[in-house]
């Protein structure tokens, strides 16, 4: 695969930056990273392999990150080269991607799982709720991609690495959005995507009391507890960070155990990366059984307590 001479990189969330830079290093000779933050953030970018840092200044509580789109677009277009911009696949990353797409007349693809540079830039992403993979070819001189996690191996940080840092002046956006408040999200942070074992709970669990039973079973298995979307979004019994699927978390565990989950594709696509899949569902025609290694047709109310005693024994 050929490399581009320069790749632009940005992540609004510090923890996602190393992976974006790793992709930049794999795909380009030069990796130019936009940084909003402190000197420590600039040094962190270099330590992960950025060759150039374009510094947009300190975090400013009055501004939203999206307000920097014009600043980024000007910097990128001033470089006048065929290039690729990689962004973290966050909500902000996607907002920036679309804004830059219009400002730079550039093709955009979101949530990309694979990039190839052969004749032009091609990007793959999931479509139809995970049923299929769509491949898109970007024809514009600048290509913009938000990159899913897991696509590139992160390099260990090396604090000895440095590079060239340039300060960029802020370009005022035309439209007006004012941030009047910002607060950290409630709830613990979990990283289901890294868990070795995951128990997923669906609508079939029936009650919040039963959720406790599922949690006990999950703890006995040494697993993290996750869920299907309705449990997080409709019932609100678990945090959004815990729902598995195309619009939630993508798993790669050794074991995934689905309890009372129907197994619709939008959920399953998040679980199909599991090595072994177990499921309990009372409906023998539930789609989940097409994807299992081991399944049992039965009632979770009966099976969960029995499994708990069996695992304790």
């Amino acid at each position, binding site marked *: 695969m050929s490399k581009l001479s320069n790749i632009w990189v940005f992540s609004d969330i510090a923890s996602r930056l190393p992976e974006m830079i790793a992709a930049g290093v794999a795909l380009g000779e030069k990796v130019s990273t936009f940084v909003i933050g402190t000197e420590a953030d600039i040094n962190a970018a270099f330590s992960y392999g950025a060759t150039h840092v374009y510094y947009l200044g300190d975090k400013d509580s009055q501004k939203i990150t999206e307000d920097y789109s014009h600043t980024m677009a000007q910097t990128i277009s001033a470089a006048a080269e065929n290039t690729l911009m990689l962004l973290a696949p966050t909500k902000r990353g996607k907002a920036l*991607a679309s804004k830059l797409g219009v400002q730079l007349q550039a093709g955009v693809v979101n949530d990309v799982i694979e990039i190839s540079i052969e004749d032009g830039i091609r990007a793959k992403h999931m479509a139809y709720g995970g049923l299929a993979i769509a491949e898109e070819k970007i024809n514009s001189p600048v290509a913009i991609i938000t990159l899913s996690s897991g696509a590139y191996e992160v390099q260990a940080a090396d604090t000895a690495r440095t590079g060239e840092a340039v300060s960029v002046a802020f370009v005022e956006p035309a439209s*007006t959005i004012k941030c009047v408040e910002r607060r950290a999200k409630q709830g613990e942070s979990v990283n289901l995507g890294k868990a070795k074992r995951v128990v997923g709970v669906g609508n079939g669990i029936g009650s919040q009391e039963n959720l406790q039973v599922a949690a006990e079973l999950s703890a006995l298995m040494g697993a993290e507890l996750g869920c299907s979307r309705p449990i997080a979004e409709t019932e609100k019994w678990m945090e959004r960070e815990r729902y598995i699927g195309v619009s939630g978390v993508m798993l790669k565990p050794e074991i995934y155990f689905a309890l009372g989950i129907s197994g619709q594709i939008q959920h399953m696509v998040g679980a199909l990366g599991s090595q072994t899949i*177990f499921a309990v569902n009372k409906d023998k025609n539930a789609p989940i059984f097409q994807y299992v290694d*081991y399944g*049992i047709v039965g009632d979770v109310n009966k099976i969960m307590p029995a499994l708990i005693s069996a695992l304790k024994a």
Partner: protein
Amino acid sequence: MKIITCYKLVPEEQDITVAADGSLDTNKAAPKINPFDLCAVEAGVQLKSLIEGCSITAMSVGGKALENPKARKDILSRGPDDLTVVIDEKFEQLLPHQTARVLMAAAQKSGFDLIICGDGSGDLYAQQVGLQLGELLGVANINAVSKIISAEPGKLTVERALDNEVEVLEITLPAVISVSADINEPSIPSMKTILAAAKKPVTSLSATELELTEFPALVELVSVIAPEQKARQKIVIEGDDEQQIAQFAEHLRNALN
């Protein structure tokens, strides 16, 4: 306040089948309103109930499916006052940057204070249309809106649930917002609203009427193919007697060790 809520018709996922070569067959899948867009329409309807003198136009761009009277009634039964559809054969498989350009032309023609879109659609889930539309129109635009806090002339206050923080934003109108699926629980149309929907006005526009000539193909769709699935054991025990559960527990224990 003049609100436009955008929607897309997408094939019902449950009825899409995968052919042996991995291609998708959507022939048996009836078109339905993209579920995320139902939230956008509902957000418009809720906003209208808060503001006096507010109208809602539903708007969509696409091919022949938009001619279907049932699909038109479906969207109108959810609360919009009227419907504008832009139909053209070449709009059958538009990519987001192109959809945004057609919507821009239609929105400029009708005028608007606020455009509400869903964050993405169930088919390509490109998550770009609302943002690109706002950017093309040169108005304030933002995605991931999870709550509309208040609306007053010329200004909207919204909450945005991001990956690790929540933002409260004041947005100057005109604007385009894209809403996330958790903003509301779309209501189910009643018989009364379904009957009323048939009487609501529909405007059908063509590419020519919008003076849309060529627009760029910044991106091309190369292929849509179902990935090969990992082979699974598919050992399914039927029944939850003590013995059957014990058998299942044994498989689980083996996997855990």
